[in-house]
């Protein structure tokens, strides 16, 4: 558990370099970022600014080239593969743009999946967790449906329930409204806001400024660096000039 005043996520001078055909591309060049428990943060910036790379590193799906990253008071930038998987499974809930529900499993089974996967959890507890998560997103009445029988907005709700089932310390959302029409997009945003009011910590990547405004705090990235909003506007104006 996080002690009061200690950030949930603390990132210092984080860098990520990709090497392709002997060419170095600097995806992240010295990111400093701290995120407190219960915060709702949006990361935005033009494509290629590094926001998805940063989210992957925060989500322990990828490792940084340099710098420090501590999650829930634990240093995580240099963990081995197994340890990283274990922490990811316990601490992090993911929501993806394309929902990533499995088409031949029911709503219930899709939400249950991460719980059956690694944790030794009694069946009754598992069932209680799945139903609790589905109730929080308002999809408990659809447990027996298959993804193809739901609208895109409903599918994303189920995906949010799947992320909640593991009771993660943070929800990471990568363009959660990218595949939805504006009405369904708004509904998913409203759901994230409600979860935040109930205490969830959320970090969302979005390129849509309307949705970024839903968050408490906006972080702007440009060329692998965190910049202030005014700075970003100026940089973007220069790019388009």
């Amino acid at each position, binding site marked *: 558990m996080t002690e009061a005043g200690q950030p949930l996520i603390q990132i210092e001078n984080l860098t990520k370099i990709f090497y392709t055909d002997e060419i170095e591309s600097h995806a992240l060049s010295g990111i400093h970022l701290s995120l407190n428990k219960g915060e709702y943060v949006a990361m935005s910036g033009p494509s290629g600014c590094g926001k998805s790379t940063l989210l*992957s590193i925060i*989500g322990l*799906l990828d490792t940084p080239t340099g710098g420090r990253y501590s999650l829930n008071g634990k240093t995580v930038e240099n963990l081995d*593969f197994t340890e990283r*998987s274990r922490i*990811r499974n316990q601490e*992090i809930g*993911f929501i*993806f743009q*394309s929902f*990533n*529900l*499995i*088409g*031949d*499993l*029911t709503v219930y*089974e899709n939400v249950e*999946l991460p719980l*059956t*996967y690694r944790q030794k959890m009694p069946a009754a507890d598992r069932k209680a967790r799945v139903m609790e998560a589905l109730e929080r997103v308002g999809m408990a009445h659809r447990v*027996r449906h*298959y993804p*193809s*029988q739901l609208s895109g907005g409903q599918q994303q709700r189920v995906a949010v329930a799947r992320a909640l089932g593991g009771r993660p310390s943070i929800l990471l959302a990568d363009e959660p409204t990218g595949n939805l029409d504006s009405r369904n997009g708004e509904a998913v945003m409203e759901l994230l806001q409600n979860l935040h009011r109930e205490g969830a910590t959320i970090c969302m990547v979005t390129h849509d400024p309307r949705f970024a405004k839903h968050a408490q705090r906006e972080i702007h990235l440009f060329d692998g660096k965190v910049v202030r909003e005014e700075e970003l506007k100026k940089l973007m104006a220069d790019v388009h000039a």
Partner: protein
Amino acid sequence: MIRLCNLERSYKTPAGQTWVLRRINLEIREGEFITIMGPSGAGKSSLLNVLALLDDNWQGEYWFRAQAVHEIKRKQRSELAKRNIGMVFQSYHLLDDLTVSENIDLPLSYKDVPHRERQSLVADTLDHFRIVAKKDLFPSQLSGGQQQLVGIARAVIHKPALLLADEPTGNLHSSQAKEIMELFRTLNQQGTTIVQVTHAEANAAYGSRTIQLRDGWMVSDTSNPELQPYEAVKQ
């Protein structure tokens, strides 16, 4: 393997009833490789969802081997599907926060397979699909073709008798699509019955039989004389 008799599917809309499938009579023999084609809205995916036992809102008869599907309840249908059917989707349906080997293992978590046996099945499958080197990578670190390879590996790890594929190459470029179709051919030659929905003529050429749908009606059913079903070849 499968017999559909007068199978029909419709939706109720405020404007009345909209028909999606009309009086479908279809027999699928063991070892066949069938392609379902037709324009958008012809009912291809609806038919595939009925075959996959994902949809219950149809009338008519559906026989799966000796089992009368139209007479059994949802729970038994799910059991039947989990035991006998694997599915491949256009958008892969992989979980981005699980590794390749974890994604492949998923269907086994729904069967009472002991842990050690699961590990060896996953290892065999990785080997068979030549993706051992990729086992600890995440889907986002793979190309589309590799992701679909993982999607197919997951669909067949529990050795289903029937493999259903909905536009399996729809998100791939042509050389990747060709690899996926070659893989389907191999699986079919090893005895898996396959039904695929596709827009691509090039993919249909791999099948032993092509069915055309228009507005929910089956309008043609032609065999590819060069590619006889596996069972027929064996005899």
